[in-house]
């Protein structure tokens, strides 16, 4: 004789009324894209209150930067948004150049635009891969990584690193692009549009994808502005704000591109915006390659490392590179200006701003990083409240946060 299971087991069954409980998601949850903890107050499966907790990756970059020279603090920006490190480097360099009034040659501007857009494609591909994985579309994951790998190889060809580059420098870039790099990039651009179509075929009209994204995580344009959302999260709500268009830096004023806008402000709209941005990024890179002017790659007053033309054939292990004459640090240039400046750039996640105060010293007196991820996580509570817990995963993915950038 079988007994009904419900009688033998003492499990409270949530009927949607009065069964409140709290749940901690993270900090080691695969769908939080880093060490993010979300304290949830649930009523059945509905989120009543959601409190994100960050700070697990806080490394004190703002404090560290006050104790480093401008050139040295560049490497900290790699570790902000490590998925799009190149875009962070560019943002930092643009800000310091504005602060210290350093000129950049045109060729360097074009190269930086190319690498920043490559970085945007990398970031969006990783976002698409993991976001799709989070909400159950397994196939897209490896397709995206396949194309991202090509770009990482190109970065390696360019500067030797695949993740943390420090390739742009204040006043230009560190090395010139090679013909092989341009060839590889051109080959990538030739195949890339067809690859985007491939991803779209997989998920764009997929019924499960639509059920998980359409109408979920809705943010109106006004709400998004009040919450401080930027990037695709703001544009998905129909607000036309892209720093590349509003306050162009580098070569963005010289190339032609469109800013894709959504209207619904839901997860699907943000997804469509990012997919369109992939096309636009490829278009920008193509124009930059076609227009790439000859000339120097760094300005005359770049306060940075000086690379020698002759590299020793062999460097013994364990020697100090500064002792070999391979790298010289230029220290005493009298170009530090007092004042403060806020400069924003459009990184894949949104508006990355640097607020600098200079005291006439070779170190920043104060460096504040306006990181989009921090603000986006701060907005998560408002967006996820009242929705289902399964949609919280989709919301975190759709806001596209990187905890390294959030916690700084």
């Amino acid at each position, binding site marked *: 004789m079988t007994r009904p299971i419900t009688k033998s087991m003492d499990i409270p069954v949530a009927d949607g009324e009065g069964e409140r409980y709290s749940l901690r998601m993270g900090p080691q949850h695969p769908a939080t894209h880093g060490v993010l903890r979300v304290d949830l107050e649930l009523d059945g499966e509905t989120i009543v209150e959601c409190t994100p907790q*960050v*700070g697990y990756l*806080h490394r*004190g970059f*703002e*404090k*560290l930067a006050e*104790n480093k020279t401008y050139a040295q603090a560049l490497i900290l920006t790699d570790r902000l948004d490590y998925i799009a490190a190149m875009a962070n480097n560019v943002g930092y360099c643009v800000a310091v150049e*504005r*602060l210290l*009034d350093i000129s950049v040659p045109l060729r360097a501007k074009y190269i930086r635009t190319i690498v920043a857009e490559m970085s945007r494609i990398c970031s969006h591909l990783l976002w698409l891969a993991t976001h799709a994985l989070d909400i159950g579309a397994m196939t897209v994951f490896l397709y995206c990584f396949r194309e991202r790998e090509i770009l990482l190889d190109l970065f390696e060809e360019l500067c030797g690193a695949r993740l943390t580059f420090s390739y742009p420098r204040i006043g230009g870039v560190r090395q010139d692009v090679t013909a092989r790099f341009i060839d590889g990039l051109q080959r990538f651009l030739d195949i890339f549009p067809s690859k985007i179509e491939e991803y779209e075929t997989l998920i764009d009209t997929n019924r499960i994808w639509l059920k998980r994204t359409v109408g979920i995580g809705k943010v109106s344009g006004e*709400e998004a*502005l*009040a*919450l*401080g*959302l930027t990037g695709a999260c703001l544009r998905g709500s129909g*607000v*036309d*704000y892209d720093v590349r268009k*509003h306050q162009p830096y580098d070569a963005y004023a010289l190339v032609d591109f469109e800013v894709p806008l959504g209207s619904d402000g839901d997860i699907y709209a943000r997804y469509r915006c990012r997919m369109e941005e992939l096309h636009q990024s490829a278009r920008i890179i193509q124009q930059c390659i076609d227009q790439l002017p000859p000339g120097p790659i760094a300005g005359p007053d770049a306060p940075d490392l000086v690379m020698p033309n002759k590299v020793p054939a062999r460097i013994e292990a364990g020697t100090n590179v500064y002792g070999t004459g391979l790298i010289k640090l230029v220290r005493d240039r009298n170009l530090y200006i*007092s*004042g*403060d*400046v*806020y400069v*924003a750039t459009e990184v894949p996640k949104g*508006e990355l*701003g640097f*607020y600098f*105060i200079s*005291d*006439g010293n070779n170190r920043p*007196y*104060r460096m*504040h990083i*306006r990181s989009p991820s*921090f*603000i986006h*996580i*701060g*907005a998560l509570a*408002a967006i996820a409240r009242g929705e289902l817990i399964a949609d919280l995963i989709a919301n975190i993915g759709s806001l596209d946060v990187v905890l390294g950038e959030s*916690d*700084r």
Partner: protein
Amino acid sequence: MEQMAIVDGLRAAFPDEILHSYTNQGQTAVVVRPGRIVDMLRWLRDTDTIRMNHLRSLCGVDNVRRKESGLSRFEVVYNLYSIPLRHEIRVRAEVGDKEPAIDSVVELWAGANWLERETYDLLGIRFNNHPDLRRVLMPDDWVGHPLRKDYPLRGREEWAGMTELLAKVQELDRFGFDPEGHAHSQAIPDEEDEE
């Protein structure tokens, strides 16, 4: 609209609050008293010809070692931008030395919530009427505010939670829990022997 014209408008609307203004690298900043900061920012946001609807950043600054003279110990800096009209302005609100505090602007921009928490966490500037003023980046029981200039780069001592954590690890170690994962490897018998 020209940035200086915005400052003039602000000066006309709040004559007693504006201390001075300046332009650096094409960006205009206005230094103000903290008392009516919410009214001023609301005026900047809601006036039809200005419409500063995007709070780009909010951060605190510790001025104690700054070479410029006549600055208050702390200040809170608001970078505003108008998306429809495409102009920007920076508002620097002076905050005093003893128990620094300023009114919260969360009612104007909900997104200021975390930015103010961060400023409180790292610089110890309190925000009046803030809905949830807790630390955000540092642990809740942290002592001190790291971004103040008198706070050392290396920190003064180990975080109290760290000693607790190590004590916990040692306690668990008595039961064979080994975070490094190798100290007890010799004590584990081979599976084949067991069989």
